[in-house]
């Protein structure tokens, strides 16, 4: 069963992966980090990514039809994708059996990365991280 570090190492094996982190979006805490961070500082990146994740998770506009809030432990949003000229960011919300507000953050090179593949793999990793 993988822990946080094994999960992050697995994320870094994805083609084009530059860095990855497990972040709590209520506090902005980086629970684990690996590789590079945009701007060089994982803690700052975590706090900024947490703001983005919080907005997506809290606003009704982004929730699924007919389910405005948290359905049990299910976050209303699965993932967030941000692209810029040279990189992608994929933020994947993690469902846990205890009360939490955690997401996986993968930073991906646009030249070498495969966004569709990364998105699928990150979802699988989020599941294995908490279910074993």
């Amino acid at each position, binding site marked *: 069963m993988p*822990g946080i570090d094994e999960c992050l190492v697995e994320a870094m094996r994805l083609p084009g992966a530059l860095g990855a982190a497990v972040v709590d979006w209520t506090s902005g805490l980086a629970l684990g980090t690996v590789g590079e961070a945009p701007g060089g500082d994982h*803690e700052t990146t975590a706090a900024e990514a947490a703001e983005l994740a919080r907005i997506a998770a*809290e606003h009704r506009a982004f929730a699924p039809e007919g389910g405005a809030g948290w359905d049990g432990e299910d976050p209303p949003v699965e993932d967030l994708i941000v692209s810029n000229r040279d990189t992608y960011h994929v933020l994947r919300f993690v469902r846990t059996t205890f*009360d*939490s507000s*955690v997401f996986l953050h993968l930073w991906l090179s646009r030249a070498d990365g495969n966004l569709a593949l990364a998105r699928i793999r990150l979802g699988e990793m989020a599941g294995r991280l*908490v279910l*074993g």
Partner: protein
Amino acid sequence: MTLVRSPRTLPPRLPVRHRPVGGPALSPMLQRLAAERATGVLLRERGTLYLCDGQVVHAESPETPGLDVLLTTGGGLDAEGWREAVAQAGERRRVGRYLVDSGRVAEGALELCHTGALFDAAFFVLGPSSAPARFRYGDAHWLGAVRPVPVAALERETVRRRALLHRIWPDPATDSAPLIRADRRAEPPVPARQEAVLGQVDGVRTAADISRALGRPAFHTLVDLRRLAAAGIVTTAPPAPRRHHPDRMPPAHPSPHPDPVSALLAPSPADPDVALLRRLRDALEAL
């Protein structure tokens, strides 16, 4: 031109004077212990930190729910499973390992929950204190190490969390006092996780009580309460009414909440302007 206000729009944040929240080290003693790679337990006024080789491996505070509450409230682990793990592995100080090896809790889930709880309790343990700290060498916690955290990282995060709370709403009153809904009629819809906190506000419960009831880290509750306070939805319960003495001379010092203002604001609490004035007053007092 018609101004349309979305019901979800929160009032704009009031400008806040930035005060340095870093300052000197949170605990010089803790930094010394880290430097000498000490193992043992640091007892402070608001809780304890367990160190192993100079790194923090566990933290507890009466103001935060313990790992047992966090893991069992959501139903992922039942209370019996927790008790058995403590009984089986407590003496060997390997309860965390036992929970994972017996298949009760996934490794990643334990790490996420425990690390979150560690930073959560440490935020309170490293809070302002008026009593001297003590350190007992050699003591280890029965949970066993899960994911040790360097002291420097813990202190940095604690300082950052203070700044985060201050930025959301500078008045710390909702962190510890019994809470009430400020005005039900003026409530805008709030996000689901804040709604859960709001549902626990009953005039008696404090942030710590709400965190325990929800099985949620206490700092998360503080963040939501500050947001609810900033939106004018939650405020602190008034203190128990004082007895009225008409013969007595008025107090020499003016009270921090001048009565004429309260009287002026009292007649129509539903008026949004009044809510704004109240928040302005609170914010000015908190500066």
